[in-house]
């Protein structure tokens, strides 16, 4: 199964894709996830039409799609 992580950045979203059976790809995605969430990014699991999903506290290689949002601040 393939997973996809979209990271929202200034230059538009950057995608990281992994095959859940490929340990190297999963590890790369996990490290990216953990590095960014340590920096304050929040991670969300999303499904079709935005109907299901939720906030992710940790990386799960079985998630089909996740979106990482930079740290939020009050304006």
């Amino acid at each position, binding site marked *: 199964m393939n997973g996809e992580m979209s990271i929202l950045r200034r230059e538009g979203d950057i995608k990281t894709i992994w095959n859940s059976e490929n340990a190297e790809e999963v590890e790369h995605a996990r490290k990216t996830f953990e590095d960014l969430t340590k920096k304050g990014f929040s991670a969300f699991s999303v499904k079709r039409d935005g109907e299901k999903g939720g906030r992710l506290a940790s990386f799960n290689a079985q998630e089909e799609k996740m979106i990482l949002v930079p740290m*939020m601040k009050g304006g």
Partner: protein
Amino acid sequence: MAGFCFSNTSTTTGRTWDNWNFGQGSSTSASTDVTWNQWATTTSGNIWSVWASGAAYTISTISYPEQTEEEREAARIAGEECGRQRKEAEERAEKILTENLDEEQRKSYAEHKVIPITTAKGRKYLVKKGRAGNVYRIDEYSREIERFCIHPEEAVPAQDTMLAQLFWLRWCEDDFLRVANMTRLAA
């Protein structure tokens, strides 16, 4: 500024502020007068006056060499490239935003650039196109009663900002309300 140092033994019987005001500069000639007076009226003149009028100074202007035709062309190309990248980023952001809307939200966004959302707690919000101060809570009569300013620290495209605001409202409303700056609007 050595005259303002009170580390010498003559301050042992008084507080620093008293010593400042009554008598002790490091210069022996100042020992009978208050430091402020020494500052303002020395024997050779008023220090402030000397400061203000004594030293000549020059305001420098910086002139830049005129750009060559090649440099102007390179700047124009760089500007166009920057604009193209920004446009591409916004197109990708538009796609990812609409992918994460339900049917009603997609319709509202297409027609009005406004995304309605009802949170798990039953509160209703409108996320308007923008980056800051673009989220409104509405009452049962659809009146805007509160405005929220919250956005990603990084200057992501407006559509990505809206997506982030939607996610926070949808899945972590308490955090949204804790971080956002809120303005109450007249009902």
